[in-house]
């Protein structure tokens, strides 16, 4: 036991003291935050006020189009046409071609307008046309406005669950997907780290020196546990670091910018298939404003469990592959494929089951240890007793524990033979033979 501890300590310290570890630990959150801030900043930049001149107004536009002082302003100058709108300070020229049966609206502009501007204009146009049609039926604008505000006040659609909690539909989706992706990525990253470590020991021929004082299984487990500790350290540092950054940023940014920031977020949410960074922004928001309604202790506990369980399940297999490889890294490719496939498959199941956490596919995906660490996280975020019953959670955890004990046992046997075998090209068939023989 003392020896395995020594191995763990070495594996942990050599990696944590490595420059790559420090760089990836501290740069990664900075890059993410910088990316979010940068893209928001860009969004703010491109959202400079846009002035649009409206010509050929059939009569209802000026009455009904609403300008937004911070983004799009409609004006109705008399002496503006296609040739001079730019010099008069307008970005676009909204024209109505009423010569066809169906009215067609065109915005002329030098540069293509942003999606946001276009969608704002479209929304305003739709509303203006609706209003004008209703007004033709003698319904006044005032009445319409009062109806819409009244309806907004009177009814609010929420999804009430049997347990009395209010379902939060968007956030669990993001949390589940986020956790699943993190587990998916870390399984590859740390699994590959184990494999490279084993390969290093084999090709540098230190394995034989070490196994003359430590049992091969101890060496393998020491490596796996040491790297697990590295992974946990890194995750923890990321969490802390992100929290700090999220809390620090508002101090450096003026209140006005923050307000704009919020507006951009809302605008982006309204866009169908808006920019990708909405997910990231949601995550950011999740850290402060939306904490209520999500069972954080449960999610964090499960996340740590499935992170470790999934890692342990696959790490020993990666170690077995590493032990079978000779100097040629290309051999690794073909041997790794059978291990990587289920992980990728788990990710595919995650992306379908996140919409539909009760489907048979999601259920089986979250039970079978090959995919459960990834798939189960997506389901857990949706609520534990409600979507995932307790028995399912415990069954899945139990199966994962049995699973990693089995893979570790199997890999240990392959590893024992592989680590000392040089010059022989190994296949999975060969490796199974090693496992059976020893």
């Amino acid at each position, binding site marked *: 036991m003392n020896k395995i501890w020594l191995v763990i300590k070495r594996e942990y310290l050599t990696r944590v003291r490595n420059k790559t570890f420090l760089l990836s630990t501290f740069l990664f959150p900075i890059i993410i935050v910088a990316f979010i801030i940068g893209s928001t900043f860009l969004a703010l930049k491109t959202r400079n006020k846009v002035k649009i001149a409206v010509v050929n107004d059939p009569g209802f536009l000026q009455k009904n189009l609403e300008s937004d002082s911070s983004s799009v302003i409609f004006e109705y100058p008399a002496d503006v046409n296609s040739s001079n709108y730019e010099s008069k300070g307008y970005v676009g020229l909204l024209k109505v071609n009423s010569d066809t049966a169906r009215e067609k609206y065109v915005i002329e502009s030098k540069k293509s307008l942003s999606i946001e501007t276009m969608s704002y204009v479209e929304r305003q146009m739709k509303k203006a046309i609706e209003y004008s049609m209703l007004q033709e039926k003698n319904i006044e604008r005032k009445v319409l406005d009062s109806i819409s505000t009244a309806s907004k006040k009177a009814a609010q659609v929420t999804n009430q669950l049997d347990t009395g909690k209010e379902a939060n539909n968007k956030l669990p989706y993001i949390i589940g997907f986020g956790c699943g992706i993190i587990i998916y990525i870390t399984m590859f990253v740390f699994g590959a780290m184990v494999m490279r470590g084993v390969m290093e020991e084999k090709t540098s021929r230190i394995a*034989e020196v070490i196994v003359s004082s*430590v049992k091969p299984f101890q060496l393998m487990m020491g490596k796996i546990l040491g790297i697990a500790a590295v992974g946990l350290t890194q995750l923890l540092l990321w969490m802390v670091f992100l929290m700090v950054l999220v809390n620090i940023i508002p101090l450096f940014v003026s209140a006005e910018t923050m307000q704009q920031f919020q507006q951009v977020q809302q605008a982006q949410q309204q866009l169908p298939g808006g920019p990708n960074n909405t997910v990231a922004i949601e995550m950011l928001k999740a850290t402060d404003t939306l904490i209520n309604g999500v069972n954080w202790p449960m999610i964090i506990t499960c996340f740590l469990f499935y992170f470790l369980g999934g890692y342990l399940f696959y790490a020993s297999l990666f170690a077995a592959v590493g032990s079978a490889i000779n100097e040629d890294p290309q051999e690794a490719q073909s041997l790794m494929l059978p291990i990587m496939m289920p992980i990728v498959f788990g990710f595919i199941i995650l992306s379908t089951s996140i919409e539909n956490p009760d489907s048979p596919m999601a259920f089986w995906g979250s039970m079978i240890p090959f995919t459960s660490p990834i798939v189960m996280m997506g389901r857990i975020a949706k609520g534990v007793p409600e979507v995932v019953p307790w028995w399912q959670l415990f069954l899945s955890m139990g199966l994962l524990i049995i699973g990693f004990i089995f893979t570790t046992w199997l890999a240990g046997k392959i590893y024992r033979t592989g680590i000392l075998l040089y010059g022989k090209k190994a296949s999975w068939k060969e490796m199974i033979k090693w496992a059976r023989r020893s």
Partner: protein
Amino acid sequence: MSLLEVQNLKKYFATQKAVDDISFSVNKGSIFGLLGPNGAGKTTLIRMITGIFYPDEGQILFDGKKFDPINDVVYIGYMPEERGLYKKMKIGEQAVYLAQLKGLKKNEAMTKIKEWFVKFEMQSWWTKKVEDLSKGMSQKLQFVTTVLHEPKLIILDEPFSGLDPVNSNLIKDEIFKLAQKGSTILFSTHRMEQVEEICDHIILVNKGKKILDGTVKGVKNQYKENLFNIGFEEIPSSLNGNPPFEMVGTRDQQYVVKIKEGFKPNDVLNYFLQQGAKIVSFNEMLPSLSDIFIKLVEGTPLTRQFQAITA
């Protein structure tokens, strides 16, 4: 008193009888040579003695008791032929780590490593990395890490490969010193001149079987061919009568003769004295281990063929 006793050890692999019924014993404080051509099963044999492999059959006694791989490995220091160290790890830390794996306390390890580093003039290496070392330098480091914990049994597989004569001698001297201090050394090689120089006792294995066992002197005597080298002031022109020997060859002022069955060296001297020849030197020509090795191993296929084994 033997430190290590190997009894009827067998290890079969899928396609080879790597070690096939080998027995021998190694005396405490002796330097023991394990010889054999490539692929004879030496490494497999050593791996069983170091507890890396379990034997299929037979047993190993270590210090009078049944060998217990888990607890006894701390009394063994093993330097494999295919050796290596962590390339990216600092040398001092690496030596401490390997010593700790052998059960040494950290402080103990530090003191001992520093002593050895002074002895081998390696003090400045402490914070260097292994990748900065030349092959010979890392060989010295490897030797230090092998013997650091003062093991009862030191197993060295080709310890001199890649070393220049100066460093070779340095390590050879340390091997002698360790043996004098009571360590037992098992030395595996196919460099015969070193074996003659260093070893007390040898065994020769080929194709998984032991084919020779004895002291260096004993083995040489066993394989001697009664050859003598006689030097003359002036070479006799002809051999008259019935000489008690056969001529094997002449060289400069010397004869190499093989004494016939039933005769003694004195008979040869008498013969030449009667002939009036002026003898300058007379000495027995013992076969070198290298000759014996080649003689015994010759005729068997150089590389082992793969065969199906039903154990």
